[in-house]
């Protein structure tokens, strides 16, 4: 479908998956499955760090891995300094063990480490115009946090310092024309009525990232349905829900940051 790789999300994949990524030329953003851990608990923090170090050691040699992300979407109380300090420490340790890759602290939110190499957001806005407007004036630097979560009392992202900017979760378009029991599944936003509407939404959302000269990449949610979450490009048993060639031709258009002119890249 024209993707160059994947965020391997909230799971440490088997070494053989990475072997095939190395063989086939599939870029990988590796992530720790940090969900489920209460970071205000000291022994939980120890368990996370011990295991993350083992993973970094296991996977250091794979050329396919280009990004490390120890955390995902953390809601942090503004005064939870133990948690904030811990995330910063894990980023620092990650960079000491592996200075050869790019590091993100918490994918999507909440960015607290000044040492991150990529600034990313998650944005499930389904209206292509509004989605595009979020990024139209992306500044080189910003004293305000770039944060597309609804208003919240939780800690916001730290200010954007002009790092590469990627939207590492978007879309998640709900599409399940073959659903056995209607009503039991879900996806983001309103379900498109036709496959044409689904494709048009995919195209408009994706192009607003490709054709923005301040954006360095995207990660579409998601490759295949999982159980009740039916927002994949493939079904759970890996059948394409949309003609792969159509997605390919959308994804392979040249991004503005790659040159500035439109056209296909191979």
């Amino acid at each position, binding site marked *: 479908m*024209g*993707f*160059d*790789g*994947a*965020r391997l*999300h*909230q*799971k440490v*994949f088997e*070494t*053989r998956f990475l*072997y095939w990524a*190395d*063989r086939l*030329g599939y*870029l990988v*953003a590796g992530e*720790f*499955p940090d*969900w*489920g*851990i*209460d970071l205000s608990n000291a022994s*939980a923090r120890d*368990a*996370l760090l*011990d*295991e993350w170090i*083992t993973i970094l*050691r*296991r996977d*250091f040699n794979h*050329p396919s891995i*280009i990004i490390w992300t120890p955390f995902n979407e953390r809601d942090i109380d503004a005064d939870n300094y133990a948690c904030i300090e811990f995330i910063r420490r894990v980023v620092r340790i990650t960079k000491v063990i592996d200075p*050869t890759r*790019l590091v993100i602290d918490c994918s999507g939110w909440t960015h607290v480490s000044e040492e991150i*190499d990529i600034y990313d957001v998650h944005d499930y806005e389904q209206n292509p115009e509004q989605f595009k407007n979020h990024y139209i004036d992306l500044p080189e630097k910003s004293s305000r946090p770039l944060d597309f979560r609804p208003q919240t009392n939780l800690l916001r992202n730290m200010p954007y310092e*002009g790092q*590469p900017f*990627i939207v590492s*979760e978007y879309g998640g378009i709900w599409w399940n024309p073959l659903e056995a029991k209607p009503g039991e599944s*879900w996806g983001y936003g309103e379900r498109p009525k036709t496959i044409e509407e689904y494709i048009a939404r995919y195209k408009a959302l994706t192009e607003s990232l490709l054709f923005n000269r*301040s*954006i*360095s*990449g995207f*990660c579409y*949610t*998601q*490759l295949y349905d*999982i*159980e*009740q*979450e039916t927002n994949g490009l493939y079904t*759970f*048993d890996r059948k394409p829900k949309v003609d792969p060639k159509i997605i390919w031709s959308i994804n392979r258009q040249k991004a503005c*940051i*790659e040159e500035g002119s439109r056209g296909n890249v*191979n």
Partner: protein
Amino acid sequence: MNIPRPEHPRPDFERKTWINLNGEWQFEIDNAKSGLEKGWCSGKDFSRKIIVPFPPESTLSGIGEKDFMESVWYRRFFSFPDKWLDGRILLHFGAVDYKATVWVNGYLAGVHKGGYSPFTFDITELVKPGDNELVVWAQDDCRSRLQPTGKQSHRLKSYGCLYTRVTGIWQTVWLEATPRQYINYFKVVAEPSDGSVFMELEVKGDGGKYTISAEIYDEGKLVADAQTSLLKPLSHIHMNVSDVHLWSPEDPHLYKLLLKLTSEDGSVDEVSSYIGFREIRSSENKILLNNQVRFLRLVLDQGYYPDGV
């Protein structure tokens, strides 16, 4: 019976002398969490069968139970060629969710915490020729908030963006034979700009003085080699590949890497792996792969499968 997932689990660190322990094991769910007190760590036949390495929640495992299982037990027998006893015998687990306690012939081989990370126990002193008993106790309290669980549901059923849990063994289990002194681990950086290859190697065991050699092959042809005899906790090797062929998604070129440790006692340990030359970095607001501006076209993959979880 056929062994599921028969392939070598670590093509990036592969020895020829290994035995896959996937397949049918005895299995018991220990809801009362009293198995240890009942002496299940040795000599106890468990009542059910499971196909390792599939978690008990999966249909491929032959169990298919999706309720919480905070304590489960596995048991099987294994044997190996007698000549393996001349060296070390390592027992490897790809991953066991969450805390694994392992006994061999009733002796504790080791304990490991972490449901996503691999671990290895040296069981040389615990084994004997012929049949050996292997028991694994996995404890997995997904609701404790003290262990990483990723997208595993904390409720009875899957909901929202959380899905079926994984308990116990979920990756390949295997035995490996090495000489008494062997290469335990290595780290490699392959630098695209000038073809430099920097390696850091750890040696384990006791075999006296040794020499480590490294060879890099491109399509079967030797393109670089080097060796070191310095006895240090970490050995370093530097090599240089000329006219380096870079790794990229468009052309994922890999070189074969062969490591050989020759010890004073005459034994030789051989490990095969591979390397790819690529550099990733950022410059201002751009991501550069091998010095080319790269827009990342990624897709979210959570690694769930209908029949294997």
